[in-house]
């Protein structure tokens, strides 16, 4: 059984804001999105801001209704069985704000009461690192403390699935690390964790699987190792030449192991397998393009992410 299953989910916003005379073009936030998250995985949902990550999460929680397609969470229909879904899911939403006039303890009590759970507010506060502030009003919390408080609310009742939308927002590096520790502990307890981020560094150290979303479409999905392998196999070679005849570019393009070639004046950027570097250089020399200087960079996972999400690289998976 999958923890999350999206089947052809499309979400289009009219952009009209419901006001006459203010209509704008419809925006397609999600385009025919299929996504499966296996039970027990930590799934990192990556993508730049505006890619549709929050919309996907909003569909899972029935905050917004898809224009087409269907979503299932823990084998329940996200639309018609939403309340049962949310009984078993812990959520750290994006763009929330706490109740200013209620204390941290009252927030946790509210979550505990709402889920008929038996947790102790003090223990949860201890876990998320706000024990000192538990009896203070949340209106005085910093962004990071509010984030910790709501993460604590999400942990109430030992949920089968944690949905965390940009959980490291407002956290310092230490706080982000603590958050990752909690995510691992929850996975080890048996929960599935689905969390979104626009920062690869948050996802890379903890995730079993990573999906990359761009413009409402899933452009890559793999294990972290898989993505790293795909990245590690490629080298980017930047070559400065004295002259750059078209023949030389064509000859390089024709080589085995070369995937893309971009020519810009006297500079050539070549993506190729590591072993093809020397062949590329000698081919340039042989075709009337003397090499003045060159530089190689092995693509890191960071760059793979950047290239997927900015659209400079076609998907090869």
């Amino acid at each position, binding site marked *: 059984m999958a923890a999350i299953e999206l089947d052809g989910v499309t979400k289009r916003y009219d952009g009209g804001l419901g006001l006459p005379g203010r209509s704008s073009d419809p925006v397609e936030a999600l385009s025919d999105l299929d996504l499966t998250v296996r039970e027990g995985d930590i799934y990192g949902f990556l993508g730049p801001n505006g890619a549709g990550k929050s919309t996907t999460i909003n569909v899972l929680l029935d905050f*917004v209704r898809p224009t087409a397609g269907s979503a299932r969470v823990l084998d329940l229909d996200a639309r018609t069985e939403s309340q049962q879904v*949310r009984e078993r899911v812990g959520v750290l939403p994006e763009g*929330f*704000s706490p109740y200013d006039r*209620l204390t941290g303890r009252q927030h946790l009590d509210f979550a505990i009461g*709402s889920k008929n759970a038996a947790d102790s507010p003090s223990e949860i506060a201890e876990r998320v690192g706000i024990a000192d502030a538990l009896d203070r009003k949340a209106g005085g919390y910093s962004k990071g403390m509010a984030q910790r408080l709501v993460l604590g609310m999400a942990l109430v009742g030992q949920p089968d699935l944690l949905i965390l939308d940009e959980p490291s927002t407002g956290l310092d590096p230490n706080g982000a690390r603590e958050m990752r520790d909690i995510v691992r502990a929850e996975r080890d307890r048996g929960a599935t964790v689905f969390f979104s981020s626009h920062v690869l560094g948050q996802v890379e150290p903890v995730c079993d699987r990573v999906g990359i979303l761009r413009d409402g479409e899933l452009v890559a999905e793999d294990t972290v190792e898989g993505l790293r392998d795909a990245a590690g196999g490629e080298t980017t070679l930047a070559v400065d030449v004295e002259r750059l005849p078209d023949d030389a570019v064509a000859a390089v393009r024709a080589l085995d192991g070369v995937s893309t070639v971009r020519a810009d004046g006297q500079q050539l950027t070549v993506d190729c397998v590591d072993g093809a570097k020397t062949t590329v250089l000698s081919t340039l020399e042989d075709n009337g393009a003397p090499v003045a200087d060159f530089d190689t960079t092995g693509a890191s996972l960071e760059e793979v992410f950047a290239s997927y999400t900015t659209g400079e690289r076609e998907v090869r998976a």
Partner: protein
Amino acid sequence: MSTLAVARKDFQDAIRSRVLLGLTGLFVLFVAGASYFFARIQPAPGGGDPTALVLIFSLLTPAGLLVPIIGLALGYKAVAGERESGRIKLLLSLPHSRLDVVLGKTLGRTSVLVVPILVGFAVGAAVIFWQSSRFTPVNYLVFAFVTVLLGLAYIAIGVAISSATTSTFRALIGGISLLVVLEFLWQQVLLAVVYLVNGLSLPQQPPGDWYYFLQSLPPGSAYSSAARSLLPQNPTTLAVTGQTPDAFYLQDWFGFVILAAWIVVPLALGYLRFEGTDL
């Protein structure tokens, strides 16, 4: 269960609001002041002792204006405010349905409203007790109960408008407009409609029961009727000439039905709209 959890949290939150403190103070001042005024300065006609009953009838009209304003003030932000601030995501991340949110908010805000009404009336009762020997707590409690119902109706209207829009500003404007039309301009609106329907002239023959029914529709009128149906005859009213209306819907007790409708219908409409939209 879920509704109650939302209501409890909403009460905890709203009871700490300064607006509520201000409203409570205002209402207490109003009831205590009016009690003093009617008990001391303007005793009952005929020179008898002022009674709580005289006071209650004197308070009906001003309470009928102040309580709707308090009710709307409590209701208009209930859902739209949560959407504006993003707190709705906190609320709906937990296993509550949108119906729980609408009902829980209404219940929570009503509990909040009960506080100023009870405090106000308790202070008023103390003032009367101090000024007058004849104090009838039953009538007083009835009055407090009907007043809470009126407040509930306006909270329901406020929460309904709040559920149907995403902006507290629009909810506020909508609520105030409705209040003004229902409680201040209703007779004029009805007259204007009759005038238009009748071909730009007023009918010669007296209007039928339906017209009086329409007149009795605003929550404030229903409130007065409902209160009258439970209280003894107003001692200051002169003997009524003519007879009580035959139609059941024109009798005083029907005010309760109208008040109930003002609670249920707006909430149902507001909920349906809220249920059908994206957050």
